[in-house]
């Protein structure tokens, strides 16, 4: 669990990040972290895992191979997800975030899983 907590802390330090969760891809449950203050982590985790699984399936079906990173852009921010194996890193971020840097950090964090 310490490794998971350290991944969460590392990403939480990124400016503009509102919440970080490690989520089980198979069950959509939170392993570590949370979605941030005022957000229901269980709901966010379940929906983000579902989104990532479906995107992976769509990517594979389209002949593009495995999806590595998914970003959902919303009115007031972004939900980003990257996964390795059975675990997805899900980040909730505000509009002002440096998305390129966050993407790199999330992809590098997946290597620690």
């Amino acid at each position, binding site marked *: 669990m310490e490794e998971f907590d350290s991944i969460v802390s590392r990403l939480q330090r990124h400016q503009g990040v509102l919440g970080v969760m490690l989520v089980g891809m198979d*069950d959509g449950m939170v392993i570590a972290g949370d979605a941030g203050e005022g957000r229901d982590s269980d*709901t966010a985790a*379940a929906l983000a895992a*579902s989104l990532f699984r479906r995107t992976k399936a769509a990517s594979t079906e389209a002949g593009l191979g495995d999806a590595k990173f998914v970003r959902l852009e919303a009115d007031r921010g972004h939900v980003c997800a990257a996964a390795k194996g059975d675990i997805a890193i899900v980040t909730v971020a505000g509009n002002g975030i440096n998305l390129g840097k966050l993407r790199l950090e999330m992809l590098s964090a997946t290597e620690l899983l």
Partner: protein
Amino acid sequence: MIAGAVSAPWLDAPLRRFVQDSRVQRAIVLHPDGKVLGQFGFSSAVEVMTACALAAAINASGKELGRQLGGRPFLGLHQGGRKQGVFMGACAAGGKECLLLAAFDRDSTLGLVRLYFAEFRDAVGDMEKRTEIDPNARDLESDLNSSLDALFGPLN
């Protein structure tokens, strides 16, 4: 679209929504005594009968186990497999306890099922006086048979 039927009309919309949103393969709602209220995805009365009997037994065992271990009954149950999972949760409709049993494959996840079960629980919880106890309530077997007849038609 998964086919289903309900013997309690108030249950139709929430159960249908739960099945569609959570993408479970099968779902059944019953009273803890085994009386079925509605189902989606089951193809025969025998399947429903079996699911109801097992769900009622699991619920009784889980409640008692929860009482013995922590002093309070367990409120939910999940059995995970490599390809399929089963979830069972308790909810209240009109002040009476109901159970929802759902089976899902890799098209859904426990997280999603839990999420939409919470919505289902809220939806049926708002329905007052819709699950009044039948004044002519009979024994478990009679109740179950009449529920199954309502869902699938009389067995030959």
